[in-house]
């Protein structure tokens, strides 16, 4: 069964460093999303992406964040200068027919 894959499973970085989280969506899906879950809190929407552009973003998704689909298969989330409060589990999802399928997540730890 096709699935969304995310790498790495765990990323440790120093405050101020740039990180790139990678996702390979399900191949025939056209809609892509990033969510995050800070420990003990709700899963929160960050951004959605369709037709090679951002379709919607939340207040969390500020200028420190960017997304890209560089090669038609990968979908990346970049955080330019990480902060302690960026520590969270980041989930990628891809969607078709109004249903979203999630990857296993990348746990980002900012020290």
């Amino acid at each position: 069964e096709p699935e969304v894959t995310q790498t790495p499973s765990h990323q440790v970085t120093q405050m101020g460093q740039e990180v790139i989280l990678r996702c390979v969506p399900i191949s025939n899906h056209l809609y892509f999303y990033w969510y995050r879950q800070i420990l003990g809190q709700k899963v929160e929407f960050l951004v959605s992406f369709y037709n090679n552009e951002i379709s919607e973003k939340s207040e969390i998704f500020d200028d420190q964040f960017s997304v890209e689909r560089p090669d038609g298969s990968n979908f990346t989330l970049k955080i330019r200068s990480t902060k302690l409060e960026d520590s969270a589990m980041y989930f990628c999802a891809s969607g078709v027919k109004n249903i979203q399928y999630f990857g296993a997540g990348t746990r980002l730890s900012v020290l």
Partner: protein
Amino acid sequence: AQSVTQLDSQVPVFEEAPVELRCNYSSSVSVYLFWYVQYPNQGLQLLLKYLSGSTLVKGINGFEAEFNKSQTSFHLRKPSVHISDTAEYFCAVSKGGGSQGNLIFGKGTKLSVKP
């Protein structure tokens, strides 16, 4: 804007007992409704969905949910739980009408099944 309330943060239950996990939503527009399950150290797995049609929807692992528009609820039920159902369950809503919009999640309910 939509919002989701899961009233119970933790639900302990004995094996083979029935369980209901409650979910209420708020929205001024039509919605799609979902339940996702997260097993320890794993991602979010789709359990079931309501997009349209019959208000009683069946999902994987013997779970079902009923969409009640008048009560704005989408409670999840299973008649007899197993130890393997121990996980965190998330109710989520998105804008309807084919919008492919983002999901709004509840805080989650941790189901703990005891032998």
